[in-house]
């Protein structure tokens, strides 16, 4: 357990590869992102499904010109992203969402590659090995391991067992497995034994650093409501 977000990211150096949990702005490690902004580390390669919006989430690091390369499935919500991409400042590798998830899962599980039908016959397949199984073509995709993995969970115990809430789970459990060092921020830390072993989503073995954040903002990207009856 650590108390300082600044200390938790102090050894993340220029040029590091980070795998970051979240889907849109849901389940993102917002305090760790602030800490990276403050540390000023640059030339980061970031593996994350999205890249935040202009002033929130990973968009903060983008606006601060700390990201060299993004590996994502969808980046459409961010004007700064567009500017940096079109000017050639930012490298982008677009990966189908399921392939991205499985590459992270595989990386964390010690599987260097796997075959999938996703992307066969499209630009995604260019330069990739094709293998036939039962008469159908599949392409080889590689596992991803990061220097650091940044995770947001709902609750943890002191050992680092994690529980997520609703769709804020998304990429976080896979991301937690795929960092050489995994840093988790949570809303609440309880004593060891207070979480039911049956309910753990991420076993604490994957978590090297654990922090409790305060006052989560949890921005909503698209607030949609219906009229009460």
């Amino acid at each position, binding site marked *: 357990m650590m108390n300082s977000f600044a200390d938790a990211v102090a050894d993340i150096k220029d040029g590091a590869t980070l795998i970051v949990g979240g*889907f*849109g*702005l*849901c*389940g993102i490690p917002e305090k760790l992102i602030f800490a990276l902004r403050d540390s000023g580390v640059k030339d980061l390669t970031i593996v994350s*499904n999205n890249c935040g919006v202009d002033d929130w989430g990973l968009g903060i690091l983008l606006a601060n010109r700390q990201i060299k390369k993004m590996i*994502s*499935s*969808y*980046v*459409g*919500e961010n004007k700064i992203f*567009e500017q940096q*991409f*079109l000017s050639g400042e930012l490298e*982008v590798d*677009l990966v*189908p*969402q*399921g*392939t991205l*998830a*499985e590459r*992270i*899962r595989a990386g964390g599980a010690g599987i260097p590659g796997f075959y*999938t*039908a*996703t*992307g*066969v*016959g*499209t*630009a*995604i397949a260019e330069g990739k090995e094709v293998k036939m199984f039962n008469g159908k073509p599949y392409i080889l995709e590689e596992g991803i391991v990061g220097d650091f993995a940044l995770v947001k969970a*709902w609750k943890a115990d002191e050992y680092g067992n994690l529980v*997520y*809430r*609703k*769709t*804020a*789970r*998304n*990429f*976080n*459990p*896979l991301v937690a497995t795929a960092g050489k060092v995994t840093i988790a921020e949570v809303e609440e830390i309880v004593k060891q034994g207070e979480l039911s072993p049956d309910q753990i*989503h991420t076993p604490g073995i994957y978590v090297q650093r654990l922090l409790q954040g305060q006052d989560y903002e*949890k*921005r*909503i*990207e*698209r*607030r*949609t*409501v*219906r*009229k*009460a009856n």
Partner: protein
Amino acid sequence: MEDVRQLIVRRAVKEIKDGMNVNLGIGMPTLIANEIPADFHVMLQSENGLLGIGPFPVEGEEDPDLINAGKETITEVPGSSFFDSAESFAMIRGGHIDLAILGGMEVSETGDLANWMIPGKMVKGMGGAMDLVSGAKRVVVIMEHVNKHGESKVKKSCDLPLTGQGVVHRLITDLAVFDFTQDGMVLVETHPGVSVDKVKESTEASFRVSSDLISQ
């Protein structure tokens, strides 16, 4: 909703059968959810990690931890389940989703789909579309038949970069319904007031007319 989209959505909802697990794409396909008969037991999947999407929340009950793949606040229905993104796409890639309904930019006569990028414009990414079209048991594409310049979006081959090759089972447009079979593309249905000639005129792709053509 404009009439054309309404027509497509009303036809598309008939693809959903009682008991199905269904993934609806972002945009026009999302509107289909409102038209599913109330007595159907259908689970809608959201690829960010929910099987059992409910209606939008009432004002004041929005939960930032509960969104759909379009990043909109939603609710969950009784019997729903949450899971991580790898599990979500295992369900998709493993053929456990009965039906995926997606929007399209172009569809070819061999069932290729293009719907994720226009060269020269900002590339936003494919999200989960490539996984869905190659993994779901049945893929239905809904789109307007012609573009705003009056050119056919149903083509001999797609000009735009593909989302999937030979992946479309059925195409529903504002003029007609087509199936993609081993023997090529087949016109199976025309909408009210639309003649087969009108469909032929508006379609670049070659297709045959089903002997069981449904015309209303």
